[in-house]
């Protein structure tokens, strides 16, 4: 039985707080934890499949043009080689998040260097890898493909805002800032490479893959193959990180499925690390001009944010740099514009916190410049400019904890308030200083279904095709169901990542917990109604804990040998249009900058965040820690390098694309400013997976300035950038 709930009004009844189990929000250790730490949790490529052949993708060595010939015979003659596949259904880019249809297909047409063009399948991995390198490809090259975003005309994206007269406000302002920041491309670099094992049973296809959103991926795969969705089963029980790179189906999934059909045997395709870098997603580089106009006291009168990003021709996705800029600060005269340059570099798409991950570091860097000009404490400047309501849409905020985060964060960090001067502290060769920034991330929520079964033995089962990509879904869904049904989380079995289950929300845009959690909540509420009827009370009066009612009657007795199963179907309703919803927070960092070499090390960092209800204190904190760690990468180390001539991604491995290592990350503090966001979701939670990196890089950048006097406008702040800006 399906129970549908569409949220049109704020959820003020606070039902979850009235439950008696008392397990929601607690720092319960991950239920799948032991499986992960003992290496017994299977990831996509690790399912034992009898007679599995191994496929390796072949990628293009030109930027734009046509494949006019493949010397298949030579490769087929190599030891163990079973097939060379260049089926026109092969996909040549990953699907963008929530695409719900096949991405670009047709491996003969090439639009970026490193694009997949064929799959070589052999008995063993070593044979396939060698053979793939040997495939001779004849191209008809279309020279002169633009690869430099600076060198092409740009297209304006929808959503430009022009309000009042920014130019005038800038001219009249007591203090104004007009600065341009750049950020470089980023890679998700999830630790598990993209992988798939495909197996057909007649017309029925089963694929073990590493994907974030099976609810969309199933349609994307079916569409790519030209088969019915009902004939496809996707399984992703454990996903070794996604960060946007596994939102849509990627090339190896379709290739494995086609090969397995052709060969009538299972085929595994695992991308090499270099391929993951070169043919999945990049976060676009950005160039961002920030214009801030303020009165004598620092109150914003004008706000301008103009960003240029890039993508391949034909891709709809454009890094949504301005997302939080639209509502974070006041300023009646506004101009916000996003433009896209069409170039032939690999696909640009979602990488953790698309938009704010790079928009906020630029905005918050500009705010620091403004605070200095006005001569006030940067925390004070932010506090002064928190709008009462969305300054563009005029909508109320569903909740906004920015002020609390700024104040509590400053206090916990030991922020030295007042106007600031650079180069005040030296420790040997190092300049030491502090910086801060606000955090903001627009809240998204999505439709989701989950089935909950309260079993006659007094345990519960939760089933949805939602994934756990490290976010803690297994555990929080068990906590929600446990809280509602009066069970310890270990009495709740959660089954995820299988399209046989009802469609969840998928893990993306930080919406997974709030959306799928709400579906579980809706299902549990319906089960509670059934139980309440059996007890003879109103559902609202039913108190359950430790498998018993408050009167001491056990669930097992109440169930009398029956299971109660309900499918919860949650849909965000009109409420979406009534509020501006976002997570807010603040970052504080202390860094040291070497006065000789420009090397920067983060000494300590704190993030204070308000993101609605905390579902699990431990996993929520981990999400925040992860976000802050990424902030360090954005600030100091991460940059994709593209060849200026053919546009290929040059530093396509983990030795040269520098994700932060353990030693880059000091002790971190996380402060969760608890709140209930009644309009964000029925369970009053918002997303947290991305908020932790939306602005953190600016806290570090601002601290670099405070420490050393080097004001840098180009992220990441590697020694070369620091030295260039360092005053003597």
């Amino acid at each position, binding site marked *: 039985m399906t129970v549908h709930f569409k949220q049109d009004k704020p959820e003020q009844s606070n039902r979850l707080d009235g439950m008696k189990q008392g397990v929601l929000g607690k720092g319960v250790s991950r239920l799948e934890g032991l499986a992960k*730490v003992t290496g*017994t949790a299977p990831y996509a490529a690790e399912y034992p499949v009898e007679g599995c052949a191994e496929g390796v993708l072949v990628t293009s060595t030109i930027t734009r043009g046509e494949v006019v010939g493949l010397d298949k015979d030579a490769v087929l003659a190599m030891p163990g080689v079973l097939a060379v596949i260049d089926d026109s259904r092969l996909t040549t880019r990953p699907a963008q998040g929530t695409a719900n249809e096949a991405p670009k297909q047709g491996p003969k047409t090439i639009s970026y260097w490193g694009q997949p063009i064929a799959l070589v399948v052999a008995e063993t991995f070593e044979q396939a890898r060698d053979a793939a390198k040997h495939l001779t490809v004849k191209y008809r090259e279309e020279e002169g493909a633009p690869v430099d975003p600076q060198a092409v005309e740009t297209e304006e994206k929808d959503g430009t805002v022009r309000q009042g007269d920014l130019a005038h406000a800038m001219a009249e302002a007591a203090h104004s800032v007009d600065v341009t920041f750049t950020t470089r491309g980023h890679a998700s670099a999830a630790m598990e490479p993209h992988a798939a094992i495909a197996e057909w049973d007649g017309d029925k296809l089963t694929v073990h893959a590493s994907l974030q959103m099976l609810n969309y991926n199933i349609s994307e795969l079916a569409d790519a193959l030209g088969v019915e969705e009902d004939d496809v089963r996707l399984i992703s029980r454990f996903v070794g990180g996604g960060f946007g790179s596994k939102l849509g189906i990627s090339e190896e999934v379709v290739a494995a499925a086609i090969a397995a059909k052709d060969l009538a045997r299972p085929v595994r395709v695992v991308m090499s690390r270099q391929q993951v870098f070169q043919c999945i997603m990049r976060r676009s580089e950005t160039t961002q001009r920030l214009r801030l106009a303020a009165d004598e006291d620092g109150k914003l009168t004008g706000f301008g944010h103009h960003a240029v990003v890039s993508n391949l021709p034909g891709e709809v996705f454009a890094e949504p740099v301005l997302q939080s800029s639209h509502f974070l600060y006041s300023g009646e005269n506004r101009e916000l514009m996003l433009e896209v340059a069409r170039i032939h570099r690999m696909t640009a798409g979602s990488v953790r916190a698309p938009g704010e991950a790079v928009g906020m570091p630029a905005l918050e860097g500009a705010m620091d410049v403004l605070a200095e000009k006005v001569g006030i404490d940067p925390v004070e400047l932010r506090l002064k400019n928190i709008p009462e309501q969305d300054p563009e849409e005029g909508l109320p905020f569903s909740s906004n904890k920015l002020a609390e985060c700024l104040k509590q964060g400053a206090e916990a960090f030991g922020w030295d308030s007042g106007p600031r001067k650079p180069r005040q502290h030296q420790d040997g060769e190092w300049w030491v200083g502090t910086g801060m920034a606000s955090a903001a991330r627009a809240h998204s929520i999505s439709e989701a279904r989950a089935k909950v079964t309260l079993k006659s033995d007094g345990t519960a089962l939760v089933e949805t095709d939602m994934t756990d990509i490290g976010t803690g879904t297994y555990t929080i869904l068990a906590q929600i169901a446990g809280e509602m049904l009066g069970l310890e989380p270990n009495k709740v079995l959660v089954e995820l990542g299988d399209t046989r289950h009802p469609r969840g929300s998928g893990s993306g845009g930080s919406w997974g917990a709030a959306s799928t959690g709400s579906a579980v909540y809706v299902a549990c509420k319906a089960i509670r109604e059934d139980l309440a009827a059996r007890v003879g009370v109103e559902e609202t009066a039913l108190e359950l804990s430790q498998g018993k009612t408050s009167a001491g009657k056990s669930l097992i007795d109440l169930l009398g040998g029956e299971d109660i199963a309900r499918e919860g179907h949650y849909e965000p309703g009109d409420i979406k249009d009534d509020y501006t919803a976002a997570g807010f927070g603040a970052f504080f960092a202390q860094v040291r900058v070497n006065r000789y070499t420009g090397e920067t090390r983060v000494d300590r960092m704190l993030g204070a965040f308000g993101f609605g209800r905390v579902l699990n204190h431990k996993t929520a904190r981990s999400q925040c820690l992860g976000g*802050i760690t990424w902030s360090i990468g954005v600030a100091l180390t991460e940059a994709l390098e593209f060849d200026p001539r053919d546009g290929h991604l040059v530093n396509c491995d983990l030795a040269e694309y520098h994700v932060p290592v353990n030693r880059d990350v000091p*002790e971190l503090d996380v402060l969760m400013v608890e709140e209930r966001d009644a309009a964000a979701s029925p369970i009053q939670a918002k997303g947290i997976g991305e908020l932790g990196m939306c602005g953190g890089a600016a806290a570090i950048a601002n601290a670099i300035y405070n420490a050393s006097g080097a004001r840098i406008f180009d992220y990441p702040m590697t020694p070369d950038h620091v030295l260039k800006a360092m005053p003597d």
Partner: protein
Amino acid sequence: MSDTISINGTQHSLPDDPRRSLLDFVRQDLGLTGTKKGCDHGQCGACTVIVNGIRINSCLTLAVMHDGDEVTTIEGLGTPEAPSELQKAFVAHDGFQCGYCTPGQICSATAMLQEIANNWPSDASESLEGEMNVTGEEIRERMSGNLCRCGAYANIVAAIRDVAEESA
């Protein structure tokens, strides 16, 4: 010399294809998939195993080079029923998220604590000689060969410290 290799105490014969990395040998041929492949080029540490007591990246070594060696993989350190102290501490401190780097982290940490006990210095050691201590900075440096993209480092360090202090 023998042409077998011991994995978690069980003898196995070496693969025919000399190209087989130790990593692919344990994952593919033996089905011990707890050891992960994150890069296949010695750049991430997900494939860390312990060979004759020493941690190495199993992706950058050939299985055939290990005749007579004793290899311990994550499966040899503990099981869900009987996890090792580090495995328990990783769960308690949430020293992971997606879990993909985790077996490598734990194998690495297991051998790392022994390296400190042996008083091997690191890049973070003030002095190259004398007793080495299990400080945060030492752990961070010594664990820097194990990338964690989920960003669980702070909790990984806490988990390792916990175990080191317990056994101290």
